[in-house]
């Protein structure tokens, strides 16, 4: 088929979590013959094991397929997948920028949700043609008229072109694809202009280096071209160009409007952030494509091997992991309590969780994560400014003039009934009210400036609980603001444990201190001696709880039949002990270091 970009349709599928995006993507792959039905492991695009377990898409992907339309022509479809979590908003925006159209999935049983809207706005920002699709029409509780009405009133889209489908049964999928042909504009751009290709994803391949997924906006790129990345300024020679069907198919060239991959012996994935522009070295574009943002970690924590002998293994594992995860950053650090480890930065707590699980599962490591922290800006009395992402590095109070902490602008969309409860939550979390935007008769959007650290600790869970799951959250960083903060140290058996230090809001320090020592008392098993636990600010103890010494730990009856069983129980306990960290003479379980995250807020205040 001769190349003609008028037969290309680049689109993505956007949806609220659980509204059935992955199933719809699978049906599209099936209908276009890209994948045979029997090869479909359910939800093909979510290919990482963890993604499948959590039902969320973390890494992006793109697939090229052909579709024979009822108009008699054969079209090339490029389907670009998007992740669906608040930690990854920027990545979503970059993959949207690679498309001309978006299929917007609305669950017929749930209607338009806040997250759907957040993504719709991103799509609108990128000038995408939006095709609304009502999914799950096979369910008895489906309410198509209501879903239509919501699409009209809440999103403001015309419902003339709405398609009703069932990702489960496949009903309506062809109608939807016809709409894609009909409504999504073919790519514009000039094949003869200087190359401008948008990088929207990448992954590491041990033979070819980084494989970059691109959308060619102008010009063309082919094997042998000398290319330059306009943000990083680095140059490479293209070694392979092709499309993914989803199997890689080397084509040697990608033309204006096409979506595909290229390799150029790029060794470090950190050189190819999403949003980066590829151009030709000898015929460069004037300016990089708009919208590029350097990805900033939001949350930091210490990563330590339980067994300090495994430091090297952890280092290797992190190196391998970052080959495929450009947003994970880390550098070595050491802790008096935990020995040698790394301070790592993540996009959010979900990202942190995913990284921890991958390190433990795929690399068989036993890890201790210290309490997550944000980055603080510390203004010293001598005029110096420090940036600190590890509370234990906080200078002594006499040297500190002020401490500033990062704030986020949080947009919370909620049914009206919960506005009061959510405002209360935001106040509790030191939020500064900004706006209450009327959305429709039933919904409103609250805007608050909230310290990022408060968002990290339990905010999302509490939001879900006060709104019975209806409210949704999106946030963007919004600069640093001074706060009345102090470093709180935890003393275990009289010694400060650096890995347990946190920065706290002074006014809630007492309750937080008490909550954390109480929590630690629950987590740390009794030792053979009494262990005092204290929370202190600037050396002054503000909360205390003592772990009493163990007095009795023996099996009462041990006769013939009890011996094997007891031996096995003890062996299991012994294994458990290996997951503990000896700090001084106290055995501390891994969970203790995350205690801050699991504090029951009702214990506070």
């Amino acid at each position: 088929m001769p190349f003609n970009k008028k037969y290309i349709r680049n689109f993505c599928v956007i949806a609220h979590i659980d509204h059935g995006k992955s199933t719809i993507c699978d049906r599209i792959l099936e209908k276009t013959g890209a994948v045979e039905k029997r090869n479909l492991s359910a939800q093909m695009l979510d290919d990482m094991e963890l993604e499948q377990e959590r039902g969320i898409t973390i890494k992006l992907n793109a697939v090229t397929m052909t579709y024979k339309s009822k108009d008699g022509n054969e079209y090339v479809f490029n389907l670009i997948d998007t992740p669906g979590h608040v930690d990854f908003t920027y990545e979503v925006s970059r993959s949207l920028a690679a498309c001309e159209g978006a299929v917007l999935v609305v669950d017929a049983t749930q209607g338009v949700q806040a997250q759907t809207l957040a993504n719709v706005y991103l799509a609108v920002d990128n000038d995408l043609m939006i095709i609304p699709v009502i999914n799950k029409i096979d369910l008895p509780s489906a309410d198509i008229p209501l879903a239509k009405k919501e699409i009209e009133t809440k999103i403001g889209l015309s419902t003339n072109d709405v398609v009703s489908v069932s990702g489960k049964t496949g009903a309506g999928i062809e109608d939807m694809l016809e709409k894609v042909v009909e409504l999504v504009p073919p790519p514009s751009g000039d094949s003869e202009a200087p190359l401008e290709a948008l990088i929207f994803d990448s992954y590491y391949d041990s033979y070819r280096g980084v494989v970059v997924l691109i959308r060619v906006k102008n010009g063309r790129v082919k094997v042998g071209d000398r290319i330059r990345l306009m943000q990083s300024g680095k140059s490479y020679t293209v070694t392979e160009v092709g499309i993914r069907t989803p199997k890689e198919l080397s084509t040697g060239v990608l033309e204006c409007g096409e979506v595909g991959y290229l390799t150029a012996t790029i060794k470090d994935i950190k050189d190819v952030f999403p949003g980066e522009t590829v151009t030709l070295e000898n015929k460069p574009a004037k300016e990089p494509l708009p919208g590029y943002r350097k990805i900033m970690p939001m949350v930091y924590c210490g990563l330590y091997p339980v067994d300090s002998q495994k430091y090297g293994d952890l280092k290797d594992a992190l190196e391998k992991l970052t080959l495929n995860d450009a947003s994970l950053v880390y550098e070595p650090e050491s802790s008096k309590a935990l020995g040698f480890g790394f301070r790592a930065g993540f996009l959010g707590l979900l990202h942190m969780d995913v990284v921890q699980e991958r390190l433990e599962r795929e690399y068989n490591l036993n890890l201790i994560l210290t309490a997550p922290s944000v980055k603080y800006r510390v203004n010293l009395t001598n005029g110096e400014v420090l940036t600190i992402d590890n509370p234990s590095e906080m200078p002594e109070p006499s040297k500190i003039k002020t401490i500033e902490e990062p704030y986020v602008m949080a947009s919370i969309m909620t049914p009206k009934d919960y506005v009061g409860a959510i405002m209360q939550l935001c106040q509790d979390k030191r939020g500064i009210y900004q706006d209450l935007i009327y959305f429709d008769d039933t919904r409103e959007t609250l805007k608050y400036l909230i310290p990022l650290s408060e968002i990290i600790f339990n905010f999302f869970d509490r939001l879900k609980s006060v709104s019975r799951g209806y409210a949704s959250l999106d946030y963007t960083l919004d600069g640093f603001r001074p706060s009345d903060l102090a470093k709180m140290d935890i003393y275990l058996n009289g010694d400060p444990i650096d890995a347990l230090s946190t920065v706290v809001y002074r006014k809630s320090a007492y309750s937080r201190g008490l909550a954390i020592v109480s929590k630690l008392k629950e987590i740390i098993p009794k030792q053979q001696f009494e262990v005092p636990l204290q929370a202190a600010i600037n050396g002054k103890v503000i909360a205390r709880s003592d772990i009493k010494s163990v007095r009795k730990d023996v099996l009462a009856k041990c006769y013939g039949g009890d011996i094997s069983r007891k031996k096995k129980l003890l062996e299991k306990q012994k294994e458990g002990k290996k997951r503990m960290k000896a700090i001084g003479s106290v055995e501390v379980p891994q969970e203790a270091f995350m205690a801050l995250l699991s504090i029951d807020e009702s214990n506070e205040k």
Partner: protein
Amino acid sequence: MADSLYVHIPFCAHICGYCDFTKVLYQEEWAFSYVNRLIEQLDGLGINKPLKTVYVGGGTPSSLPSDLLKKILSKLSTYLDESDYEFTIEANPENLNEEKLLIMRECGVNRLSIGVESSHLKFLKLMGRAHTFEEAKEKVKLAKKCGFTNITCDLIYGLPTETLEDVKQDVVALLSFDVPHLSTYCLSVNPGTSWHNKGYSEMDDEDAANQYDLILNEFRKAGYKRYEVSNFSKPGYESRHNLTYWHDEEYYAAGLGASGYLNGERFTFTKNLLSYLKGDFEGERETLTAKDLKEEFFLTNLRLEEGFSLENYEKRFGSSFLEDYKEQLEKLKLDGLLVFEGNRVRCTDKGILLLDRVLLSLFK
């Protein structure tokens, strides 16, 4: 070479909520077939006579009717070394009577273990026991009258809401029986029991330790020696059968869910009564590794007040205990958990109460 035998009688007239032994509610037709199968199993075990100790436990062996009791006990009496043996049977007050006691005597039973458990009616009721304390007291008298001198009584402490004062009364009551052996068990709530399912919890270790210390002191004052974590006796009345377990020696076993230890292999017969009654006795088997052997040696021997001798360790494992555990022993001694006396190692009073901690540091 084993010279001990454990025989399990799984029947009970009542089921107690905390009990995690293999047991079933007594039914006449089952009991009849069971005893026949048990005898058949005994015949098939190739037991090397004569034995030094036989222990009939349960369940409640005394729940068997007189004829069945006689049938099984007279069978077992043929295994005994007549010149020197210990033959124990467990009994509950509510189904012990003169007829059964005389049958036991007749068949050579020379040690009787009576489940007294508490002197308080409210705790006996809570546990689901079917006797009163007065009844237990009477049955002990009756047993003495029938010629039993080697009698042991069980006590359970650490019960929900039980106070130190409650335990003190139990101790006084039990001492008034004037029997040469006493066992006291701290309640444990094990998975699979109805108490576990109901969410009962075990007593805080601090309170349990105080109750234990009270029992230990009072019993010692009364002339009993603690020879094992939960067992006390007047001199010469230690349970020889149970010492087999705690010396980590081998023994035969027969009966539903019974565990034995022969030729380096631990095994437990089926816990399914229907399989057992069909003659399908097999359950689980575990061949012990070198690591298992050492762990079990500590797990058993360190329960004993007298611990074990360094020669015994060396004879079994061909190396020196002091060398093998040099690192761990330093700390155990320093923490006051283990002591060395002459050529023996044993737990201190503190160490016995923290035996699981001691064992964990000796497990590798």
